[in-house]
């Protein structure tokens, strides 16, 4: 009776135990999607006992925040990258050719 219960408990524990590889996958997935209940539960159980995955979760959060900051930075007009003048000239000429080409435009590319 007791042995049978222990076996069932062991099996349950085994099902809940996940590796760090799986845990880090779930941490990543949770950034983009809502985890299913079993996934969420497995991850929380794992994190209770694993400081490396706890560090990973925190680092990934910081990484995401930094990428958001960077996105705003690159979309802010205060930080333009200037196209070299000769490249601009080539594009200007290319536009002019296309305009003058009328219906022929694009055919001589």
């Amino acid at each position, binding site marked *: 009776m007791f042995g049978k219960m222990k076996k069932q408990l062991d099996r349950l524990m085994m099902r809940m135990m996940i*590796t*760090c*590889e*799986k845990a*880090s*996958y779930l941490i*990543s*997935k949770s*950034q*983009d*999607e809502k985890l299913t209940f079993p996934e969420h539960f497995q991850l929380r159980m794992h994190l209770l006992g694993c400081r*490396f*995955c*706890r*560090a*990973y979760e*925190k*680092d*990934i959060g*910081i*990484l*995401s925040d*930094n*990428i958001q*900051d*960077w*996105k705003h*930075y*690159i*979309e802010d*007009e205060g*930080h*333009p*990258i*200037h*196209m070299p003048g000769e*490249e*601009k000239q*080539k*594009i*200007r000429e*290319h*536009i*002019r050719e*296309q*305009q003058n080409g009328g219906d022929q*435009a*694009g055919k001589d590319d």
Partner: protein
Amino acid sequence: MPDLTDPAQWVDQYGDYLYTYAYYRVNSPELARDLVQETFVSALHAKDAFQGRSSEKTWLVSILKRKIIDHYRKQSRSKEQSHEHYDLPFITEGEDRGQWDPNRRPREWPEQGSDIDREAFYKVLEYCLSLLPEKWSGVFRLKSIEELTTEEICKEMGITPSNLWVIMHRARLRLRECFENNWYD
């Protein structure tokens, strides 16, 4: 019909803006330049369809954005993938399979003050993003920079949601490790 600026003026008015937009997204000055040129050419041929519902600049950006997504797709499907190899930071054999490789365990990053050199920091970020293999890079950028939905990315890149989660997972492992080695060290 709304008035558009003379296309001859586009380069001066929007050239740098579009170039900057593309430059940060494709990691290559030559490619950024080509995408800007293609954007102007497409705009030229489509200018009769311009409805004036958005500004001219927004309209040009939307054309460029479409070209960038097409570029990611082509890149991810091309056979000439960079062969840069990345071993996941986990033990691959034995009883401890799937646990962190002891030499590559994540460290908890220290709190970052507001006095850090943002420019230098972003250079590291750009460098780390440039290390991602093309397919990961496209998926990762579409998700975290362009903020496309999972369904949209799967459709564009011809992958399943599980593929997407695995790619995002590996990209994050790689980026985190790159950051730890190049910024927090």
